[in-house]
């Protein structure tokens, strides 16, 4: 049977995530140390898991309102105000709880995009952005960031891509996979540009808690930005809650309302167990979160030092739990480096090209692994690099 005549054209044209192919390869091998994950190695802090169990014990197993539990929305809005995001939202109609940030981004894009609208995003980036824009029938317009300014983003780079069809810009800082952040000047200039061209900014701040140097307020707090920003965040990374699938979006009520329409017809609501666990995370788990963050920071320091010692250039990322390591000195392409390293030393890293073609020459290494594993992995990589260079 020719299924292609049934499958929608734009889905047929969508490539599978570059990570997926590599994943299949890794899965065939034993004794692999994987630096290829994108989630914390810690289990969710016990007090949060316990709150989820208690929620089930109490029989809280129903739907919640489409927007999510009001108690959680209130706690989120308090958190955004108190914890240096510097932006205030009304929990009643300016906040929606979603199934992870991925869903929030999908809702935002589908709520905004008319067929052919352009959305600007920066590569290398999280694997979903390009595909999510296409699935919403938009046109993805990429900006290639580069190592020269540590994969950060200047307003000038955005300005070059703006056309009359541009509707929105996606920002993801701290960035997966590069760990890049924006400074105050960059955010100021980007804000001015967005206001000047009347654009919406989608800011995916899922890694905001995992910022190791000074953390700036959200771009939503810059002049003229609150009214044109959809702020996206969640619990997966900082609270080690990836499996709970809970995130949220905040923004002007008209935009949240539009997103809510799609959410209510497709997802209905996020799981109540996860929402109650998230409530506990915000209320009582800051200490656990900071403990994990501190551990990530120390692993990052160790990792960066080792890579630079073995002659693989690697700047120190300011946020996230990824290193974007340059491997060009081995004369191998990203994919060859990753495949050979896997074959010869049983260490899995993700080729930079999985995050956009400008990731060529780099591999992503995650440091959400125990330092013991990181040590063994870096020893193996060191041996591999030495062999390649000899």
């Amino acid at each position: 049977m020719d299924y292609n005549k049934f499958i929608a054209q734009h889905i047929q044209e969508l490539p599978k995530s570059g990570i997926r192919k590599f994943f299949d390869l890794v899965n065939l091998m034993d004794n692999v140390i994987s630096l290829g994950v994108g989630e914390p190695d810690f289990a969710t802090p016990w007090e949060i898991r316990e709150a989820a169990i208690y929620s089930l014990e109490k029989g809280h197993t129903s739907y919640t309102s489409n927007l999510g539990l009001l108690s959680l929305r209130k706690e989120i809005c308090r958190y955004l105000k108190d914890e240096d995001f510097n932006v205030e939202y009304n929990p009643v109609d300016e906040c929606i709880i979603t199934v992870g940030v991925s869903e929030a981004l999908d809702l935002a894009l589908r709520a905004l995009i008319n067929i052919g609208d352009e959305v600007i995003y920066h590569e290398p980036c999280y694997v979903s952005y390009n595909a999510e824009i296409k699935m919403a029938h938009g046109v993805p317009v990429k900006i290639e960031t580069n190592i020269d300014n540590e994969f950060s983003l200047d307003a000038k780079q955005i300005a070059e891509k703006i056309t009359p069809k541009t509707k929105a810009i996606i920002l993801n800082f701290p960035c997966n996979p590069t760990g890049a952040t924006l400074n105050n000047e960059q955010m100021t200039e980007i804000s001015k540009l967005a206001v000047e061209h009347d654009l919406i900014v989608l800011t995916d701040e899922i890694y905001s808690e995992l910022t190791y140097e000074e953390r700036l307020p959200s771009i939503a707090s810059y002049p003229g930005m609150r009214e044109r920003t959809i702020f996206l965040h969640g619990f997966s990374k900082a609270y080690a809650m990836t499996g709970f699938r809970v995130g949220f979006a905040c923004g002007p009520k008209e935009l949240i309302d539009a997103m809510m329409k799609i959410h209510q017809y497709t997802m209905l609501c996020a799981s109540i167990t996860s929402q109650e666990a998230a409530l506990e995370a915000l209320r009582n788990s800051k200490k656990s979160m900071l403990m994990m963050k501190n551990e990530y920071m120390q692993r990052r320091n160790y990792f960066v030092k080792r890579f630079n010692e073995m002659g693989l250039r690697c700047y120190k990322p300011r946020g996230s739990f990824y290193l974007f390591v340059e491997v060009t000195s081995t004369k191998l392409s990203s994919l060859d480096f990753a495949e050979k390293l896997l074959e010869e030393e049983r260490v899995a890293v993700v080729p930079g090209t999985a995050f956009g073609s400008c990731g060529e020459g780099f591999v992503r290494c995650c440091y959400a692994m125990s330092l013991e594993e990181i040590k063994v992995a870096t020893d193996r990589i060191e041996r591999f690099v030495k062999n390649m260079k000899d």
Partner: protein
Amino acid sequence: MRESILKLLQQNSRISNSEIAARLDVCEDEVKKCIDSLEEGGVIKGYTAVINDEALENSAVKAIIEVKVSPSRDGGFDPVAKKIAKFSQVSEVYLISGGYDLRLVVNGQTLNEVASFVARKLSTIDGVTSTRTHFLLKKYKQANMILHEDEDFERLKITP
């Protein structure tokens, strides 16, 4: 840096100075200097291993003993507590609030050995008015380490 170093040593007292330096992004000399001063200043009193006795063939007997003491006019609880602390069988001594005064951890090869220590040495100290001995049956967590890990589950090796 002091606090960070103490925390790391508490988690693993065998951690090398070079690993501490790499983790904290400081130079090794600084780490050495800091640890030396912590040792000299009496903040770090020693380094020890966390041992899961149950994994040993001849596991020793441990008891937690609650001791009531009538305090002395001059030194309060100190003279009795210090005297008790001198016994090699006693590994920990705490003055605590609540229903009794001192809480000890006492070790022995057998039940009898601990029992006879309590009867002959501990109860007979001047100022000790009563003791209650609780033998330790099973250890679940020690020095921040959970001794019986949950079983592993399949974690994805590559995720976006």
